[in-house]
């Protein structure tokens, strides 16, 4: 079997058995990328001269043994361009590594110098909002890869990456993982350092793994999780070995099925696939009960207020003073600001900055922003109540399978609604995973989402792993 098809753990095994080495793996992946990426566009800046890999080389003693990781274009990598798929960050080469990158390097990972494609500043659910063009779904090139971590998800699905990092603000890891038939995990808010992740919405963003299977997800989380004194919002809490719980069985585990996630708007085909998955979990010993998360209907409005407000402030720094793009020959300061930002932010970025600026502006703060923060409390309380009785919540990851490229791009609200099942985990800070649970008649993957209480990543990994091992989905490969 070709090396690129293997999971990261399988690659590590190969290295340990001296059947391969990191250098060989990197060059094999490089070949694979050259071969299929023109179809997928999972990576950005591939045509640019390749900077040398800051690979540690074969490192037999380190946990990751030199196996490469693909990184989303919004995670800072020292010496490698990090542009958030945005024209405004044109040419930006960070002078520092994100904490997750430092951790990966310390664990012996190689960092690929080209980064994975994304919606500009992670604004989107399809990776169509990229200045590098859309990423295509490896299962159907006419379909979107999901977003905003579409590049990472597609790269893993198309065997262009052993594994990858994405970021998730409202579903940006889980939804593309679901669309591409791979595993995507969003950790508890505060579990993984955000230092070096170019912020979209600071109170919602988390970095997480996108992998070929659940075991890889646990292994990668082992490396990136943990307190970081550079991130005031990271939590000083011991990191367990997440691979330990895998295979421990889910007998007697209490699963909540929120009725609000199985109503109108959910594609009937997706619904029946997810219901079958729930049956599978039951057959493995889990106990299910239909419950209510009464404030679910507010999650999208709350999200689009909180996330855009924070984004409008976070993105104010892109002004052409210190880095990135500056408009040609500005006559004065105000023109430099307005023109630079006007000509280099994409439509979705402008929309969100405008919305976020508006909800914070004088006279509207209480009606929008403050109200949203209060409803956020209600949503959080809903989950707290649920987790006093249940071990996890199971839902579809997305109401539909991957949609066609261009289908929703002109209708932002419709696009926003595709995040309906993933947003609550961010608002409530919960860990959540998407694991492949079947295919539609058109051959598009469907994802099952599992959520647990804060810092119970072990629960979602355990349940996802039990399900995965009892089903064939994660073994399926797209034909490219």
């Amino acid at each position, binding site marked *: 079997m070709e090396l690129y098809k293997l999971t990261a753990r399988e690659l590590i095994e190969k290295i340990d058995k001296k059947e391969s080495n990191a250098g060989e793996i990197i060059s094999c992946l490089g070949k694979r990328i050259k071969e299929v990426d023109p179809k997928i566009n999972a990576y950005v800046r591939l045509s640019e001269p390749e900077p040398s890999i800051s690979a540690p080389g074969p490192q037999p003693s380190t946990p990751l043994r030199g196996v490469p990781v693909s990184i989303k274009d*919004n*995670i*800072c990598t020292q010496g490698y361009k*990090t542009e*958030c798929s945005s024209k405004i*960050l044109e040419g*930006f080469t*960070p*002078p*520092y590594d*994100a904490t997750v990158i430092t951790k990966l390097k310390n664990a012996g990972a190689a960092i690929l110098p080209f980064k994975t494609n994304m919606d500009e500043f992670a604004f989107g659910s399809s990776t169509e909002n990229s200045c590098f063009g859309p990423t295509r779904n490896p299962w159907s090139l006419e379909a979107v890869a999901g977003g905003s971590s579409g590049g990472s998800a597609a790269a893993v699905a198309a065997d262009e990456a052993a594994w990858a990092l994405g970021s998730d603000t409202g579903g940006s890891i889980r939804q593309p993982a679901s669309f591409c038939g791979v595993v995507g995990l969003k950790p508890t808010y505060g579990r993984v350092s*955000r*230092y*070096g*992740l*170019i*912020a979209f*919405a*600071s*109170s919602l963003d988390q970095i997480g793994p996108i992998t070929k299977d659940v075991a890889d997800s646990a292994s990668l989380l082992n490396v990136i999780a943990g307190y970081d*004194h*550079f*991130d*005031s*919002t990271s939590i000083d809490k011991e990191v367990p070995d997440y691979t330990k719980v895998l295979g421990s069985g889910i007998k007697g585990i209490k699963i909540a099925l929120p009725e609000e996630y199985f109503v109108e708007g959910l594609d009937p085909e997706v619904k029946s696939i997810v219901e079958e998955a729930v049956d599978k979990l039951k057959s493995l010993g889990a106990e299910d009960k239909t419950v209510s998360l009464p404030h679910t209907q507010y999650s999208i409005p709350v999200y689009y207020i909180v996330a855009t*407000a*924070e984004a*409008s*402030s976070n993105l*104010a*720094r*892109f*002004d052409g*003073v*210190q*880095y990135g793009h500056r408009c040609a020959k500005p006559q004065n*300061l105000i023109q430099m*600001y307005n023109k630079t930002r006007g000509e280099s932010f994409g439509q979705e970025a402008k929309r969100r900055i405008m919305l976020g*600026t508006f909800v*914070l*502006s*004088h006279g509207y*703060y209480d009606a929008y*922003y403050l109200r949203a923060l209060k409803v956020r409390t209600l949503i959080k309380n809903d989950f707290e109540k649920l987790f006093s009785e249940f071990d996890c919540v199971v839902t579809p990851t997305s109401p539909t399978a991957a949609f066609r490229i261009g289908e929703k791009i002109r209708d932002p609200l419709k696009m926003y609604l595709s995040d309906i099942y993933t947003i609550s985990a961010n608002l409530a800070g919960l860990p959540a995973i998407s694991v492949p649970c079947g295919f539609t008649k058109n051959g598009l993957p469907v994802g099952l989402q599992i959520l647990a209480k804060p810092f119970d990543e072990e629960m979602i990994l355990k349940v996802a792993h039990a399900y995965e091992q009892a089903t064939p989905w994660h073994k399926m490969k797209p034909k490219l």
Partner: protein
Amino acid sequence: MYETVIGLEVHLHLKTKTKAFCGCSTEFGREPNSQVCPVCLGFPGSLPVLNRTALDYAIKAALALNCSVQNYTKFDRKNYFYPDLPKNYQISQYDLPVSRDGFLDIRSEAGAKRVRIKRVHLEEDAGKLIHQEAVSLVDFNRAGMPLLEIVSEPEMNSPDEAYEYLTGLKSIIEYLDVSDCDMEKGSLRCDANISIRKKGSTILGVKAELKNMNSFKSVREALAFEAKRQAELLESGGEIIQETRLWNAEESKTVSMRTKEEAQDYRYFPEPDLPPFTINKDKIEAIKKSIPELPESKRRRFTEDYGLSEYDAKILVLSRRNAAFAEECINEYPGKEKKPVVNWLIGPFLSEANARNRELADLGIGSKALVELINLMEKGVLSNLSAKAVLAEMLETGKTAQAVIKEKNLAQISDSSSLGGVIEEVIKENAKSVTDYKQGKGNALMFLVGQAMRKSGGRANPKVVQDLLKEKLNEG
């Protein structure tokens, strides 16, 4: 017929080793953009982490200004675009500042007064802009330095009161050692709001915000100018508009910024990158304990315990180190009546210190050495004149008073046997004056004393000389 109403907003650089939210040094005057990192440059992906000492200093200052320290405080983002602001928002505090509701007692010619302090909060500083012909240059070394903002209520009624407020505030902050308070280096900045109203009115007039004052003196001048300008404007039937005015020190006047005044909309919201802070009673108590005796209490003690005048005490307590040095000297001095020491401290010693732009304690003469000098003078070993000469020599060489006296032979001569010869000579050489004296002209004696002093090189004890002269002249 008009009453002036003034409120002051003071910004202080806290004297921490590192910036408010990152580990960059706060040292002044380094190469441009050499004390910067991804955090204080606001580079994408960077995150702030609060400097513990900055919060401690803020609490300390707030307590010393009689503020109530809040048990729950948080940071907010103040959003506006400006090239010296790396993130285009400033991390500041909006609705839940570290502390509020304090006061500062001041004394001016109008008497004693309590000025209330609205709030004291912590924020980060911006960078520095240097304007050239066609371009403005940005240096971010200052960006992210911890700033304390102290906002008074509009309760001062004269430029003098404002001046006293600033002097008092600076004195307290220096006692706490939490800021350099150096306006020239920009570690203390002051903006003023000023309006006038008819005496007796309770409604505030339209205010002007004054900026660009670089010393307390210029704050006073700018306020005086502005109060006069506003009064004249009203008198001539004009109307005061709310605006920002810059103090032009060269021309001694305030000038309207003339920019299109747009209503600012800072879109404050809670800083999501910084979880909130709780300040418990234990912490407040611990910080309270670290606060030294403050100038006001010191001043009271100096007048009550040592019998200093209000004026002398106020001067001596202004600086913590001066006060400590003065107290050392006072305690060192054996006499019960402390006036001689205080006179020397406030007089020759302070003027020497001022001339050298130093504190009393930094003149290189310890309290023991100074008191020794004063004692020698009090005991009559030195004349007042010689004592000043000895002081100058001590400052120059660092030698003790005794050593200088010995070396320069400056001791006062008081014994009659040593002075006998001089007296004889003077009587012999000034026959006319002797005659005048004998004819009852009192002035003649003073002349003869002066001659004797001159002959002794200023070392003769004038009282002894006078007695000896009288004795001799009355004999013959």
